[in-house]
């Protein structure tokens, strides 16, 4: 295990509150649909978790559909309206792009921000028949999309809206289901310190969505299959922990990232930080070392016991060039950029170590 973990956008370490909550429900049989008292107890735990998540997501607990994660939530949202044309962006996560291969892609600028004029042109062509899906924040760069403007435009043209909020949920820039006015939001437990393998699709009450998985009619007939109670309880506890921790820790992370970026940019002409001048998550820095392949950088850091990542990882663990940075027109830098992402357990010294090893790598022969 790496001594310095800076890959929170891939997955965050489990919060102790989540671990404790899960341990507490592991021993009893727990099918929330069962009639007996075990089942009733499980159903109660399930509803508590639903409320905890709804509270952090600014939603009614009825709007929460538990899923196996962000990928399933995105699939359900995007495949639930087959008579709608899907409009999305080329910088979305693969869980969106692969689920909607026929989607129309809106142009993005060099920071990855959506071109609202282009979006409006597309919406005009499909008035009343479009589903717009725009991520809250990008997983690789942390760049935050202007969701309020997207929703306003979508309403003007009677489009359904969805946002993949996996990366911004529980962070600065997340406005929640009610305030944002988005029809559907995808969220995931393990990005906020909950367990891997559980997430949710939040759907506004007046929108009917068919199930993706057919089965026993769980989740108000919107998702078949016995609910993953242990995971869901961990998700709820993590959401509660995020809500209780306030915003000070996020401000501290922002300072750490800003300090790191300034240090590397002033020390080296080879350093390029993406989305530096636009709204970004407080915990994400996508930084290129010009001329140095991203995969070599990731290996170098791993050998120094620092965990960071680049691009999208395949099941074999190979590093592929980033489709996000390519869509942003980053050119060769798309293959020379790594992502530093921090979270609830990060310490200022993690950033110092990263900076030292980054500067050291620059000196290695090319």
């Amino acid at each position, binding site marked *: 295990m790496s001594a310095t973990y800076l890959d929170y956008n891939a997955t965050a370490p489990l919060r102790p509150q989540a671990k404790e909550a899960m341990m507490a429900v592991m021993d009893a049989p727990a099918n929330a649909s069962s009639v007996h008292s075990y089942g009733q107890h499980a159903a109660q735990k399930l509803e508590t978790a639903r409320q905890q998540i709804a509270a952090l997501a600014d939603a009614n607990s009825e709007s929460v559909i538990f899923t196996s994660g962000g990928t399933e939530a995105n699939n359900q949202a995007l495949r639930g309206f087959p008579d709608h044309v899907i409009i999305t962006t080329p910088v979305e996560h693969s869980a969106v792009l692969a689920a909607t291969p026929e989607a129309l892609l809106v142009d993005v600028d060099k920071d990855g921000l959506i071109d609202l004029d282009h979006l409006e042109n597309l919406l005009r062509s499909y008035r009343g028949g479009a589903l717009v899906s725009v991520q809250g924040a990008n997983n690789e760069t942390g760049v935050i999309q202007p969701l309020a403007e997207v929703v306003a435009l979508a309403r003007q043209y009677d489009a359904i809206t969805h946002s993949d909020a996996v990366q911004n949920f529980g962070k600065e820039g997340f406005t929640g289901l009610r305030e944002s006015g988005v029809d559907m939001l995808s969220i995931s437990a393990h990005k906020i310190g909950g367990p891997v393998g559980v997430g949710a699709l939040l759907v506004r009450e007046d929108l009917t969505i068919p199930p993706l998985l057919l089965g026993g009619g769980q989740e108000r007939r919107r998702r078949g299959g016995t609910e993953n109670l242990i995971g869901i309880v961990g998700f709820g506890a993590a959401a509660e922990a995020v809500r209780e921790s306030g915003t000070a820790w996020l401000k501290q992370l922002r300072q750490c990232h800003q300090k790191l970026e300034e240090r590397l940019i002033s020390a080296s002409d080879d350093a390029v930080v993406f989305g530096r001048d636009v709204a970004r998550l407080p915990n994400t820095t996508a930084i290129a070392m010009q001329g140095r392949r991203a995969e070599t950088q990731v290996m170098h850091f791993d*050998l120094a016991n620092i965990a960071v990542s680049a691009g999208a990882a*395949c099941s*074999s*663990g*190979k*590093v*592929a060039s980033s489709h996000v940075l390519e869509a942003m027109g980053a050119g060769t830098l798309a293959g020379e950029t790594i992502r530093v992402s921090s979270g609830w357990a990060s310490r200022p010294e993690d950033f110092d170590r990263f900076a030292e090893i980054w500067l050291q790598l620059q000196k*290695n022969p090319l």
Partner: protein
Amino acid sequence: MKIEPKTNPKNSLGFNAPPENTRVVVAMSGGVDSSVAAGLLVEAGYEVIGITLQLYDHGAAVQAKGACCAGADILDARAAAAHLGIKHYVLDYESRFRDAVIDEFADSYLRGETPVPCITCNQTVKFHDLLATAKELGADCLATGHYVQRQLDEDGQARLYCGADTSKDQSYFLFATTPEQLNYLRFPLGAISKAETREHARRLGLKLAEKADSQDICFVPQGKYGDLVRKLRPGAIEAGDIVDTTGKVLGQHEGVIDFTIGQRKGLGIGGRGTGIDENTPLYVVAIRPEHRQVVVGHKEDLACVEVVLRDINWLGQGAMIGRKVLARLRNTAPAEPAEVTAWEAGAGGDTGGGSAVVRLLTPQYGIATGQAAAIYDRKDKAWLLGGGWIAEAKQRMALDEKQSS
């Protein structure tokens, strides 16, 4: 009080440092050899990093829908590295491999040649790109599981020798290794036999100890290279005539890519009316892609007395020209006496590039262009001096003259 020695004795890889301070990258293919190479270095106390190259999309290559992009070999390499307790990484070399190896492989067949893609891979991917990555990672050397030996001469210059296990010797595939690359390379299996490697694998507890050796070219499913070339170069393959050495048409073929110089079986000719004596075997003696012709003849038509080599690599000290050498013109052929009679420098100066003429002291049969010629010292027979790609194989009976008459 203990007195620390001022200088460390050289470790087994030749560095003035204790093994734990020597970082070694091992190219791990997922086979027994490279896994054992890594295991032996781990046992010797080195800091070992395993790297596996993803060279092609396994699912696409075997045309199996839903197959993962990583083949079983990558997973085997991963499991071996985990068992040995070393760091392991998979690098994506798909586009590089496609450009440098697979495309060149297809084009070579279209030119009527018989390519050796494993050498191209060593030359362009493993000993060029992977070696550069190893240096970037601050490694002291790159080790592979090849059965070849690297030894230093009196002046400290690295020489490349055949593997001690002559049945597994891979020096032919490494003829293009440059002196600079050789300085950085290590071959932990060079001095042992394949049987010993398997014993080590069992002793190290590696699950792949009994895994079969790879036989075919890794990216060609079931050895059907013709299918692959047709898929890669649709429309470029045309049917044509099979002719004898006088130009008489004996039959038809579906594309010159299906033939190799020296091939005897599967010619699809013979029988009544062709005038061929069925008791005299016929061989492919020439491939003329420009005329879409496959020329067949008798064994003596295959006798090759001289080869012209291109893209020479020279590891041997001293002049190449006039040198009495042994030449191996196929991996499975013995190295036979030869002499370098002409040499022209290429862009690489005196050690690289350029072309040479090699005269064979006894004729050799079935020599195809596109194959490699590995050159060895005639006295110190296991010493690989370098080699080149066969650009021209001159047969005793000049076919061109016969054709034009």
